């Protein structure tokens, strides 16, 4: 009904070319009403006028820039207050502005109306956006049809035209003429959009005993179309599933990489590892706060600054931990478990006192928001893509550090035989501190990544500690490659199971799987082989 009125209004508006109607003050008043129906009617009425003034008001409404000031509806724009009806600035700006809110239903209506209006905009980008918006949510096609008829004809741009053609086909699905419907169905069969599938579904539905769609040909065509759409969807669904697995895996890997050094290489069962992640995440928060206050223009790049800062802060904390506590516990690995557990309690409570028990807000920078549309039903979020790449980067860093530098060799030597390393001239104490610092710093980097997808709060680390150990142990202690495979494997398996059995059961199954797997390969995926292992 709403759609119907809206579209009808649009058609009328569009058809009344040249005849510029003034904005009806009553309609504007309606916008300010507390009553939902009145508001809706007012929007419909405004949309029907279809001119620039109406568009301006609707746009303001959609942008939360419409307000009431002493009974008059006004638009607030960059410190100025404009009269909604005329668009003229009001001076002096009235006080006590009361913003006119929208709810979801109205917002949808406004957006739809704006989109329909903008199909005829001179700006290509605006037309494209409008077409896309309608494609995502067209509503009742039949009433939109006349506008689309016009728009398709008027459109010159290829890309937009394709979309409009699809919209057009969608709109014709409800045509009373079976031949028109058939053509529309056939046209839509080319799509790979779940929305189109949803539109076609009613054509093969039964009501009682009878099919909703009476024409057999249309119904068969719909059947085929749905099949072929489903085929296309299935592909991207699988791709999506694999991506979610990889993405989860990369997060597990980032969470675990630091531990792969501190525990995997150095043998410190670092229960405070999660808190190092937490420190990394709070560093990102601190950088965000700093940028907001000091460099508001570059706020989107706070994350770039957060990477080194998190590394160094976490590394410093790690080095302090090593110097004060862990240093005295080499060769007593299980004691490190206890002491670092104590450290983790201290760090958590310290964060709680410093930043409050509540989570803090860390925003995705704009360039990490949204996603790339791979297929109609497959959008890869930027933040996840960035994190996958970032984990690759950190992995490379760790690998180079451990295997291609003298420091890495010293670290490995020291952890294998500390006194002897001293006896060939390695300053073991310094190397220990440095290595632990690097491991902690890497954990800090993990924390930065986590801040982009999960909570940042004092106990955030506790949620990762079990998973991190699982990854390192499953991969084979001290085996970087093992950790990578373990993380990716766990990610993909988890996500696959989750799709099939739900998150809770999936989690249980994954744990059971780990238990069974370790029975088969007690030393992990990439077990150390060789005669020294046993002795």
């Amino acid at each position, binding site marked *: 009904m709403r759609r119907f009125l809206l579209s009808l209004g649009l058609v009328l508006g569009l058809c009344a070319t040249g005849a510029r109607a003034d904005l009806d003050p009553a309609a504007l008043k309606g916008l300010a009403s507390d009553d939902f129906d009145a508001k809706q009617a007012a929007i419909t009425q405004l949309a029907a006028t279809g001119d620039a003034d109406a568009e301006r008001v609707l746009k303001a409404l959609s942008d939360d820039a419409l307000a009431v000031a002493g009974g008059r509806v006004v638009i607030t724009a960059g410190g100025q207050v404009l009269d909604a009806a005329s668009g003229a600035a009001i001076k002096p700006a009235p006080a006590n502005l009361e913003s006119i809110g929208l709810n979801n239903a109205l917002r949808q209506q406004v957006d739809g109306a704006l989109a329909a209006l903008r199909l005829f905009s001179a700006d290509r980008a605006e037309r494209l956006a409008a077409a896309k918006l309608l494609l995502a949510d067209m509503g009742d096609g039949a009433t939109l049809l006349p506008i689309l008829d016009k728009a398709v004809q008027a459109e010159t741009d290829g890309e937009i035209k394709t979309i409009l053609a699809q919209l057009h086909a969608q709109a014709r699905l409800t045509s009373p003429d079976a031949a028109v419907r058939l053509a529309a169905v056939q046209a839509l069969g080319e799509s790979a959009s779940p929305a189109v599938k949803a539109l076609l579904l009613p054509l093969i539905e039964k009501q009682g005993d009878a099919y909703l769609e009476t024409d057999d040909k249309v119904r068969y065509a719909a059947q085929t179309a749905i099949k072929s759409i489903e085929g296309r969807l299935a592909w991207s669904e699988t791709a999506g599933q694999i991506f979610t697995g990889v993405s989860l895996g990369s997060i597990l890997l980032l969470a675990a990489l630091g531990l792969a050094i501190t525990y995997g290489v150095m043998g410190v069962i670092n229960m405070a590892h999660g808190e190092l992640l937490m420190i990394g995440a709070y560093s990102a928060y601190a950088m965000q706060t700093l940028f907001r206050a000091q460099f508001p223009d570059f706020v989107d790049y706070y994350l770039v600054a957060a990477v080194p800062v998190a590394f160094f802060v976490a590394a410093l904390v790690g080095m302090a931990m090593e110097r004060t506590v862990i240093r005295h516990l080499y060769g007593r690995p299980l004691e490190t478990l206890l002491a670092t557990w104590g450290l983790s309690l201290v760090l958590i409570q310290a964060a709680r006192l410093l930043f409050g028990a509540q989570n803090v807000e860390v925003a995705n920078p704009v360039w990490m928001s949204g996603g790339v549309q791979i297929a109609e039903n497959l959008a890869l979020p930027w933040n996840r893509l960035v994190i996958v790449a970032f984990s690759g980067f950190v992995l490379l860093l760790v690998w180079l550090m451990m295997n291609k530098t003298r420091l890495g060799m010293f670290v490995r030597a020291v952890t294998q035989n500390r006194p002897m390393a001293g006896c060939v001239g390695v300053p073991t104490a310094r190397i220990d501190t440095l290595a632990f610092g690097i491991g902690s710093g890497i954990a800090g980097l993990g924390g930065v990544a986590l801040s982009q997808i999960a909570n940042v709060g004092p106990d955030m680390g506790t949620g990762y500690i079990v998973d991190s150990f699982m990854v390192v142990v499953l991969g084979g202690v001290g085996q970087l490659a093992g950790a990578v495979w373990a993380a990716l494997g766990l990610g993909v398996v988890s996500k696959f199971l989750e799709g099939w059995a739900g998150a809770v059961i999936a989690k249980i199954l994954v744990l059971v799987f780990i238990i069974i797997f370790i029975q088969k390969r007690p030393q992990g995926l990439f077990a150390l082989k*060789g*005669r020294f292992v*046993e*002795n």
Partner: protein
Amino acid sequence: MRVESSISRNAPADGQTEHWDGEASTGHVLKPGELDLSHNVILYLDDITVSFDGFRALNALSLQIDAGELRCIIGPNGAGKTTMMDVITGKTRPDSGKAFFGQTIDLTRMTEPQIAHAGIGRKFQKPTIFEHHTVFENLELALKTDKSVKKSLFARLFGDDLDKIADTLKQIRLADQADRPAGLLSHGQKQWLEIGMLLVQDPKLLLLDEPVAGMTDDETERTAELFVSLKGKHSLMVVEHDMAFVEALGGKVTVLCEGSVLAEGDLATVQADPRVIDVYLGR
């Protein structure tokens, strides 16, 4: 073919070997009478090959040791002597080849404790003892008894056992150290203790990997005496690089090189062999 069938009867099939349960199969495999020495051969290695990432540590090695024999194995560093012992004790599985203990017991299908139970004792190149236990307890644990959990819960030491431990302590000259934690012994003392642990275990076949490493000449001599005295009652296989020691032992000598037997015979013959001089003794 008859041999085959008796193998499968005596040695549990693969699946069972995996989860060896001491009591049940002990009675089966290990009854003293079960070690079949009818051909007077206690150890028979046939065509054993072991490789690590393509490197052949043992290369079609065949070797035979008679019951009661004292055999010395020498050979260059890396010849595969320790690896051979690993194969015999089940620590390393050969890629191919057979290893028989007596006529019937197929070692390649048994786990380490099973093999130990069957009567093969080993001394490692690097002494391994229980550092937190006293010297006495080390011997007590090694003592040849029923080693099931049930027995251990109610075990007591009786006169014979105590005597045996006391004798052994004297033999290995650690009587005055009996109550010290073994971890505090010097390297040489640990070597002796480990030999002592082997002795109380009373194995049929003793594998000794460089037993006199780190001992003084005098101690080396005594060790040789000890081993010679064990000959006959036990079979011994000794790996050493100390030619004086090997000479003192006086048994047959096998020279391993690059994973297979290079020469075999008494020491004098072997020492005269130019190939042995080349790869091992030096000029």
